[in-house]
């Protein structure tokens, strides 16, 4: 038996020669990213849940004597222009943004999924109508759509959730419709119809389970997008209103003090970043895990 031709392995395409190591590293890396993402999300959820425990007291109560202090032992992230602990506001802010994220995604799912199913399954005039509305909504970049809706509905937490939620609906409709269209063509659906199964049953039993996978991935990513959009609206002053500690709004008000006290704007931004990163990482991880093609 002849020796291994190391030359072959090394020269052929420039990838690491030791393929065993490469393989296990790829596996670990793929999981590691998702793992980090899950940890971040977990921290986020726990913080939101235990906010009053982690930071007792009123996060929005002003304390003007201590305003704009640098980070110290007492206030690890410093204080803002009204003397409030930034750490405390960030912790409590996690509740707000989590609430918004869940609300937004719920709106998207509750409205988008049924519309997408109906549109894809029945086709015809219903599909045409829904698609034209979706096209119109998608004629705007998402954030702009949310902004436009806020212009109509007004500011505040509730309207933020509705606006951002509605701007997410067309994405879900498109996604679900596309998936429904391909599942509808499958032979087992044809068989079910031949057996006389009612449409609702088919939708629930056959189509919906198949659509779950892309919906789940989209939802995870959507949570991140929701936080970003809500923060954007807050930053502009048209989202959640003060004194509610929403991260974007904190950034917005911190902007005025950028020159003397940059920490006011920096830390809430990091919080947003970490939360969104967590959702993106796990969304990607989910997609990889659920993707049957398992590309290397």
């Amino acid at each position, binding site marked *: *038996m*002849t*020796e*291994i*031709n190391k*030359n*072959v*392995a090394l*020269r*052929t*395409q420039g*990838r*690491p*020669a030791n*393929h*065993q190591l*490469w*393989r296990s590293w790829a*596996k670990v890396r793929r999981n590691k990213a998702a793992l980090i993402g899950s940890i971040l999300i977990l921290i986020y959820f726990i913080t939101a849940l235990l906010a009053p425990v982690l930071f007792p007291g009123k996060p929005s109560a002003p304390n003007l004597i201590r305003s704009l202090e640098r980070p110290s032992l007492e206030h690890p992230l410093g204080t803002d222009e009204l003397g409030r602990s930034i750490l405390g506001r960030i912790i409590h802010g996690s509740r707000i943004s989590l609430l918004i994220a869940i609300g937004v995604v719920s709106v998207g799912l509750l409205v988008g999924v049924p519309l997408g199913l109906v549109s894809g399954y029945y086709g015809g005039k219903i599909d045409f109508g829904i698609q034209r509305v979706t096209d119109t909504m998608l004629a705007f970049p998402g954030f702009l759509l949310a902004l436009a809706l806020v212009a109509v509905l007004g500011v505040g937490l509730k309207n933020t959730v509705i606006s951002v939620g509605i701007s997410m609906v067309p994405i879900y409709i498109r996604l679900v419709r596309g998936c429904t269209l391909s599942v509808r063509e499958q032979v087992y659906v044809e068989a079910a119809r031949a057996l006389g199964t009612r449409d609702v049953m088919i939708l629930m039993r056959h189509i919906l389970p198949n659509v779950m996978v892309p919906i789940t991935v989209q939802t995870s990513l959507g949570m991140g997008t929701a936080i970003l959009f809500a923060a954007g609206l807050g930053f502009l002053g048209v989202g959640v209103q003060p004194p509610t500690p929403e991260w974007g709004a904190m950034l917005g008000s911190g902007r005025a003090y950028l020159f003397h006290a940059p920490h006011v704007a920096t830390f809430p931004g990091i919080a947003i970043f970490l939360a969104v990163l967590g959702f993106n990482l796990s969304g990607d991880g989910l997609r990889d895990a659920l993707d049957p093609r398992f590309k*290397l």
Partner: protein
Amino acid sequence: MRQDSLLSIRDLRTQFHTYEGIVTAVDRVSLDVYRGETLGVVGESGCGKTVTALSILRLLPSPPAEIQGEILFEGTNILDLDPDEMRRIRGNAISMIFQEPMTSLNPVLTIGEQISEAIRIHQGVTRQEAWRRAVEMLQMVQIPSPNARAHEYPHQLSGGMRQRAMIAMALSCHPQLLLADEPTTALDVTIQAQIVDLMQRLKDEFEASIVLITHNLGVIAGMAKRVVVMYTGKVVEQAQVKDLFREPLHPYTQGLLGSIPWMGRKLATGRRLLQEIPGIVPSPLEMPDGCRFHPRCSRAMEICGKEEPPLVQPDDGRKVLCWLWA
């Protein structure tokens, strides 16, 4: 090794490192291809025929592939060549045609461009000259209005024409060896005959050797003189085509031939009905002990389940991997 041996494969072993373990797609295969001959390589899907061809041209990404053994082409071991030397061989001295002409041709480049680029690099001529030669090749493969066709894209051609274009592409630099991987499988039966015809003619005209990989025994009978039968990565029988058809030695080959609908003729076994080989091809990660075919073999003996059979040479020009002939 005979004087006129063009390609000599010795103990070729191609393995893939996968998440589930090491898959040995080609397990110590040895064969020769002589000048001017057509060697058939027959076997079911997954028996390692395509991987063997890809190993010859070193087109397998490695990692995850790992190739061991010797592949001597005109005396040089091509497994030892560096990438530049290898590139000079590909498309030039050895070229390959693939099974699916639709996906194997680049959809965004014209046919003429895809043929002439090989000519340009290997023969060092100008763009215009290369194009001219490309059109010439298209004519040789009997594509009507070759000049117009050369400006077209793959999706504008029919399946048969695409395959002809692939053949033109592969033969454009007059290679000495052509590896043909299932050249007729993706085509209609009537077109198949035309392509087989075409390949025969061109082979004679260019004085090339062909390694014809297929699972279609009919095509083998029509084109090859010698044939090699593969099963689970090993060569189980090697013979002249007429000998193989007249008197297959390995039970697997017998099974293959027995499963062809064949009008009138009785086979060596005397049966007339369509026979099937019981069982299925084993998974590469769970190979049986001893002879890999023994679980499905109607003539298996005790030793078949224990030890791997030796490669026996019962006749000049015949080889068989079976205890029955040891």
